[in-house]
């Protein structure tokens, strides 16, 4: 019964939101807006629940830790509690909140993102081998696009940006459009399977 109810709710809300998108009807639009706001509220509660999961995992880690391992979990829990209380009581525009955001959070995120540059070098060294014709075409195209995107490439030869741009605007774009259309239709099919209850993986089990 629980499954059937979940599928019914999914179908009805999905149908309402899709219909409201296409049809000009104030009651439909309002209903759709309300449902989407409920979605935001559910997400907020899901965040609270996920925080409970996080706390459970790290409290267990602290209880079972050997040596100084507990320090990392402790720091995480302290930061979670501290920033949550600060944000709720003083708001995100508060000086202390902004200080920790600018001094710790932003540089931390930027640092991890910046590591992509290093990983792309090691991935390129390991994986970009000319094993066949397709790999050779990929490599030559990548070289033209890379050199076309930077000043040194243009300084070496004026043709690099021209060829690079053509590769991006013609064959790459054609492939991207094809994949976009395919993925888009795949998304519609996936959505329809969920709405009709054919795809039940989100309710638990193997999904069939």
């Amino acid at each position, binding site marked *: 019964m629980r499954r059937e109810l979940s599928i019914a709710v999914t179908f009805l809300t999905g149908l309402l939101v899709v219909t409201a*998108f*296409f*049809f*000009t009807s104030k009651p439909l639009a309002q209903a759709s807006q309300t449902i989407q706001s409920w*979605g935001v509220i*559910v*997400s907020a509660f*899901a*965040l609270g*629940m*996920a*925080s409970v*999961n*996080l706390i*459970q*995992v790290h409290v*267990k880690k602290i209880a079972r830790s050997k040596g100084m391992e507990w320090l990392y979990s402790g720091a995480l829990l302290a930061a979670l509690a501290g920033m949550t209380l600060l944000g709720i009581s003083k708001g995100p525009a508060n000086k202390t909140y902004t200080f920790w955001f600018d001094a710790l*959070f932003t540089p*931390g*995120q930027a640092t*991890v*993102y910046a*590591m*992509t540059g290093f*990983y*792309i070098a*090691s*991935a*390129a060294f*390991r*994986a*970009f081998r000319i094993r066949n014709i397709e790999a050779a075409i990929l490599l030559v195209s990548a070289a033209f696009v890379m050199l076309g995107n930077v000043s040194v490439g243009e300084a070496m030869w004026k043709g690099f940006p021209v060829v690079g741009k053509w590769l991006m605007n013609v064959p790459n774009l054609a492939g*991207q459009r094809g*994949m*976009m*259309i*395919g*993925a888009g*239709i*795949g*998304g*519609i*099919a*996936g*959505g*329809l*399977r*969920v709405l009709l209850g*054919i*795809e039940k*993986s*989100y*309710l*638990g*089990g*193997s*999904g*069939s």
Partner: protein
Amino acid sequence: MIAKGKVFSFWMLVVIILCLLYSMWRARKGRPVKIRKITGLDAIEEAVGRATEMGRPVHFCPGIGGISAIEAPQTFAALGLMGYVAHLSAKLDVPLIVTIRTPEVLPLAEETVRQAYLEEGKIEAYIPTNIRFLSNQQFAYAAAVFGIMAREKPAANFLLGAFWAEALMLAEVGSEVGALQIAGTAQLSQVPFFVAASDYCLIGEELFAGAAYLSQDKMQLGSILGQDLGKAIVALLMLAGLIAKQAGSSYFTTLMSK
């Protein structure tokens, strides 16, 4: 009635849905649907088997997308594949670690894995704290996964779903710890990174076809055929538009902007 600027989209959606419904009805009637071999999906059993032999866990990441935005179908597709992996992990007694970024995916992942263990009769082996919400911030999540992979050293690493900038890093760290990697996403910007850095890659719709391919469920296979019918119609429209444009007619351009 139909909002201005959305008439063509609405009717195209209706056509695609009709294609899907027709194909699913046809499959249900017993007309077989064959999907070509998808190496990445065939390798799932090999990957989990490898983890069993090496005595190391399996890591599964169902993407960092949610269930309410445009990447939702990818997340649902990943959850379907997670169920299959969870069944295999339960059957072969290998620990399964699932890392979650989006909070609302956590209960779905917990239920999917728990149900899989229950169906395999191994509910006592199910460890709830192996389904871990790490952070809803993208790079904090990525950094946490790096740590888990470095410490737990999974023998099989599944990166299936919607990914963004952390995709390459997750795949590279997985490669560094020696994991067999099966990745898949419909995020076009990340496909090249997965192709370069993982052993097997599901590109675009191969991810959506995953659950159908593995379960061989008639209705799901039928919907894959429906997708292909929809694509064929779009291709015909594109061809007709191209010919019309070359002939100097803007009929299709006007039609599509309605």
